[in-house]
């Protein structure tokens, strides 16, 4: 009997304690970050969206090989006569033209394994996290500033070069024989 009353009193008393706790929270300032109006500061070295400085890319494909999920695709071709390739910011001469540089951000792990092997420091993780899209195809980011026609032209030029080389080789081997 005594236990029963102690039990009831404990239930009542602890309920009051709980009510006091929540009541005191009426006077605590809200901790919410009102997102579209204000946002948290993200550390500068946080790993979010991948960015490529295409003008510095020499097409070595080190990042493509390093990627554990194979979400980076690079196509290179010989430069056309009208492209004059400037040197990178490290002073390396660009011998190949990167005609196609895509990163499928929907597959990217944000592991930054592609960042370290890059000899020209042109692929980087940025603290930008706002890139939601309405279509998945838009998440495949193209960093090479060419139109599809341009790219087709370069591919055609590349294939022509290859054919020429093959033909030359064939001629050479015939001559040797």
């Amino acid at each position, binding site marked *: 009997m005594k236990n029963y009353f102690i039990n009831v009193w404990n239930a009542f008393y602890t309920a009051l304690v709980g009510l006091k706790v929540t009541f005191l929270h009426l006077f605590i300032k809200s901790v919410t970050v009102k997102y579209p109006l204000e946002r948290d500061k993200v550390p500068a070295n946080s790993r979010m969206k991948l960015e490529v400085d295409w003008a510095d890319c020499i097409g070595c494909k080190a990042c493509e090989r390093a990627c554990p999920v*194979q979400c980076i695709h690079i196509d290179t071709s010989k430069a056309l006569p009208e492209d004059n390739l400037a040197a990178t910011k490290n002073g390396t001469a660009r011998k190949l033209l990167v005609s196609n540089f895509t990163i499928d951000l929907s597959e*990217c792990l944000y592991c930054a394994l592609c960042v370290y092997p890059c000899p020209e420091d042109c692929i980087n993780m940025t603290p930008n*996290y706002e890139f939601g*899209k309405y279509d998945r195809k838009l*998440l495949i980011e193209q960093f090479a500033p060419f139109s599809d026609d341009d790219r087709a032209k370069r591919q055609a030029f590349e294939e022509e070069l290859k054919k020429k080389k093959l033909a030359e080789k064939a001629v050479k081997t015939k001559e040797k024989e």
Partner: protein
Amino acid sequence: MSEAQRIITPRGHQDGIILAKLDEVLSLARSHSQWYLQFGLACCAIEMMATAASRYDLDRFGAMPRATPRQADLIFVSGTVTLKMAEKIKVLWEQMPAPKYAIAMGSCAISGGPYSRHGYSVLKGVDLIIPVDVYVPGCPPRPEALLEGLVLLAEKVKKEKLLSQKFSKKRGGAEK
């Protein structure tokens, strides 16, 4: 929101100014009241919970968690969608009443993510089984990124014209 404008081209409607205005008001109201069904599957679910908690507060956008799909407007698919679970997502999606929306959160839900090449038991993108409205990339995305996805969805809902569509269909399918 240039992205939004590019994707959702405004539908042509000749239903008069009243219906159009009413539509705008109704869509505005709907865009502010997206009750969500949470479908947390993996690590992204933790970020989703963090988004609903005090620091980021999904409630600010009028989003209330609902336990039953019958009362939800929106499903957050967050995490690795295995084939075994994909069937359940489909069932839940079909139980939701129209108009309904889906947000795919995280790389795995969007395209299989790290499992996209060699994952034998993972569905390569939840959009293979349900229509996804907004893709929120990240591995996992920050809570703010999910909130951005919700804002993008609200922008999309605002541009919808359900009434005009309904009436034009009744009149003989002017929509086509």
